[in-house]
């Protein structure tokens, strides 16, 4: 692995644990610290390398040996520049939108006395919970120039078809909204861990609020912002749901449509798909390098220090009602409108624009049919098990991994960081193929059980877990850890008693994110599941294929309710163990 160059260690105070040079016998016998670090490293390396190895092999080797034909087939197309152009435009737009929305909402939520704080939670989670297909179709029903309800109601004011969801702007809008929760969760964790005294001193010195936000707050949150941009751009580059439903209609093709086309063929052109994924990989590695560079002077961002602080909400003054209005508007537009469309559709026999007639024929049949779907309960149970297990495992491993990457002086720690990021670029189907390849040949009977799905989920969500944990770790000052060690605590005690509680906001945010998205994972699940191990996303896919859009909407409503309940519980529990709460 020579992908991410190992940089000479940044100038940092020596925070190596324990006595400076342990005797030889101590070095040979593994200490608990060494064991923990070793196991975590092994787990990450194993999870990340299996699919990557498969991807690389499939890309560069065929029956006759090394080959670059895959690249020729993948990129040798006059349209490839258009595709890459569209993709980048879409990805950068969606990332920018989600960054502005997520950061803005998080800031208002954590640091100001904005009204309607309860709405934030729903506004930040629900676009993530609604299955992608449903959220996108809900937006078609809202924003289509031909049948969009919003266009219908806006027509008297702005004229015909003022909104067009079937455009690159529409795609950016829908994708940006769907991604904004990742940013929100990251930034909330980051703002919570930020000492407001820095901002207060700036205010005292006469800076305006906007200047403080721009010159103090945002720079302090830079690690989180960089992480968010990185995830966002790669995620939107990979996204196919939104481009497929919104872009194709007007002939806007993206990079991933190529991956889709080459994998559709028989035999599936793994080599070309791999070549395309390698393109993403290169972009992602550049991203990781930039983000490491941006986060290099880590001491600058260490806002959680030995000094006690209590984030005091900033008073918005006369801007308070304006902010309140903005929040309500945002909430209505991004949460209430799509949810209402789904709720409305779930009560119909077939979708038709609202009229007296549709309201009088409403029925609960779709919910009844859902209740009679035999696998619904099993699927819900399996999804819950997988979601909770993968979120917990990933965040537990990543809390330690973040220490390795941010704090330790171990050589090659950046390689670990890059490794944990790479599964993000492996297309879901390729991941499924890789895992089935390995576990079909494994003597341990994992193929055909729930475990193979668990492994797949843990691999797919490693990158998110890593970003959440690393971002939080970068904000915790060395001095806390050092004082614990000076006072005689072991590394493990320090980690568990000092670092972990301080990391909690980030860990909980990552946990919630993984739980929620795992309910939606389809592309690898569909290949790896076996009878009795169905998960909710497969059920959604089946209802969708059946053409039961109304039943699907009902399922979407049920999912939103289930996950909102779960996430509420997680928030309450997380707040209890977390550093501080509102």
């Amino acid at each position: 692995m020579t992908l991410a160059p190992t940089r000479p260690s940044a100038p940092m105070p020596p925070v190596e644990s324990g006595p400076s040079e342990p005797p030889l016998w101590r070095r040979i016998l593994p200490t608990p610290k060494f064991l923990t670090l070793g196991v975590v490293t092994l787990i990450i390396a194993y999870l990340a390398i299996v699919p990557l190895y498969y991807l690389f092999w499939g890309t560069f080797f065929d029956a006759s040996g090394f080959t670059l034909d895959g690249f020729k087939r993948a990129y040798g197309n006059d349209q490839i520049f258009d595709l890459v152009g569209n993709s980048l435009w879409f990805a950068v737009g969606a990332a920018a939108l989600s960054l502005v929305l997520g950061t803005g909402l998080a800031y208002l939520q954590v640091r100001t006395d904005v009204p309607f704080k309860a709405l934030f939670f729903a506004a930040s989670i629900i676009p993530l919970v609604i299955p992608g297909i449903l959220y996108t179709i809900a937006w078609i029903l809202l924003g289509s120039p031909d049948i969009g309800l919003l266009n219908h109601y806006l027509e008297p004011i702005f004229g015909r078809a003022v909104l067009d969801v079937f455009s690159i702007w529409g795609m950016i809008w829908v994708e940006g909204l769907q991604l904004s929760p990742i940013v929100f969760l990251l930034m909330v964790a980051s703002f919570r861990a930020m000492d407001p005294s820095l901002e207060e001193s700036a205010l005292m010195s006469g800076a305006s609020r906007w200047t403080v936000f721009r010159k103090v707050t945002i720079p302090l949150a830079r690690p989180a912002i960089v992480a968010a941009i990185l995830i966002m751009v790669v995620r939107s580059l990979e996204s196919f749901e939104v481009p497929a439903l919104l872009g194709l209609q007007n002939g806007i093709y993206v990079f991933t449509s190529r991956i889709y086309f080459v994998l559709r063929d028989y035999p599936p052109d793994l080599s070309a798909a791999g070549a395309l994924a390698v393109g993403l990989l290169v972009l992602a590695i550049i991203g990781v390098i930039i983000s490491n560079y941006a986060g290099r002077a880590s001491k600058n961002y260490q806002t959680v220090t030995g000094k006690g602080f209590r984030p005091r909400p900033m008073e918005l003054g006369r801007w308070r009602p304006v902010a309140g209005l903005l929040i309500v508007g945002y909430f209505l537009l991004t949460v209430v409108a799509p949810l209402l469309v789904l709720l409305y559709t779930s009560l119909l026999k077939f979708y038709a624009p609202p009229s007296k007639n549709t309201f009088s024929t409403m029925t609960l049949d779709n919910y009844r049919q859902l209740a009679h779907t035999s696998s619904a309960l099993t699927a819900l149970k399996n999804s819950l098990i997988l979601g909770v297990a993968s979120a917990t495992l990933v965040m537990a491993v990543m809390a330690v991994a973040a220490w390795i990457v941010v704090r330790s002086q171990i050589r090659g720690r950046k390689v670990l960081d890059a490794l944990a990021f790479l599964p993000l670029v492996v297309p879901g189907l390729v991941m499924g193929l890789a895992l089935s390849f390995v576990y079909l040949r494994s003597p341990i009977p994992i193929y055909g059980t729930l475990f193979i799905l668990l492994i797949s989920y843990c691999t797919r969500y490693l990158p998110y877990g890593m970003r959440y944990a690393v971002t939080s770790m970068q904000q915790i000052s060395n001095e806390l850890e050092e004082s614990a060690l000076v006072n005689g605590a072991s590394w493990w005690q320090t980690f568990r008693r000092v670092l972990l509680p301080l990391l909690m906001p980030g860990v909980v945010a990552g946990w919630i994110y993984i739980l929620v998205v795992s309910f939606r994972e389809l592309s690898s699940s569909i290949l790896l599941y076996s009878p009795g191990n169905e998960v909710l996303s497969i059920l959604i896919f089946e209802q969708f294929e059946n053409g039961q859009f109304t039943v699907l909407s009902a399922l979407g409503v049920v999912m939103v309710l289930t996950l909102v309940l779960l996430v509420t519980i997680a928030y309450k529990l997380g707040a209890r163990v977390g550093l501080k709460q509102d």
Partner: protein
Amino acid sequence: MATRPGRLIATIGLTLALAACGGSPTASNGTSGGGEASSKYDQYEALKGQERRDKLMADAKAEGEISLYTSMTSDVAEAVTKAFTDQTGVKVNLYRAASETVLQRVLQESSARHAGADVVETDALEMAALGKEKLIAPYTGERRDLVGKEGQFDNWTASRYNLFSPSWNTTKVPAGTQPTSWEALADPKFDGQLAMELNDYDWYLTLYGYWQQHGKSTAEIDKLFGDMANGAKVVKGHTVMGELLSAGQYSVAASNYTYLVQRAQDKGAPVAYRPLVQPVIARPQGAALMKSAAHPAAALLFEDWLLTEGQKVFVDLGLTPSIEPQGLKDPLEGLEVISVDVNKLLNEQKKWSDQYNALLEKSDKLG
């Protein structure tokens, strides 16, 4: 620790080395099954009628279960497996996914000699691919002879057909103005009103071949398709195609499955596909026995059953069976029906898929 060569890199290297021991992940490991495997069906193939059914029932019950991989939609799959289990007492383990996923799973499993499926039921292209990979065993029951010649393929047999025909939104297309021929879809009056599906190159190649046989020149045919694609809205998936048709996003869908439109119509949605535009294009969906089946008697029983009682289940769900059950009137009687050319689909797949993509990518003519 910092002074010694990175343990971390060593660990990662070790993992890589271990992973590499697995050998080439994508190189072919040969196919499982082998020549002698199909013989597990021989003892039954000579039997006929009730005798065959009785023997299969007894042996299948002893095997206890069957593993079915299929791309039937879940409502169909549920009805079929329930009826089968009710009538035979043999439990069905169902793996359901899109046809290309079914194929990929079978290929993966067979390359590792893992006996996953006993019977596979899916789309023509994937069935033909399984035949080409020599993974399926010959099936020669009497029931196969009842399936028309156009439904008997190498080792696999059509169990039902999906019919492609234009459908339209009845509020946007008043009676009498609907398309009455495939050529009519090229009419400029449907610009901005016609939907085409991203993956229907099987429909495309069949219609293309039909027009060639009926004396149209390549230039004429390309012009017709070009005029269709000009201003067309491209959608992915037949479900979305149907949903948005009924919602009024466009007025005409070029190539939806008739049964999906029928279902929407049955619920009262303003959509229609009759009178059917001719030729109706039928794509076979087929079933086959796996050479590697762990439950051969149950597999054979299932295929026999699917082509007998199972046909009735298909009819009840509004699907088109490959053997019209006795006493029922063939709904396609008197219509010109052509079948998708499966060999062309298998052997020239990439060519047609690329050509169709190119056609659709040029459809970018709407503002």
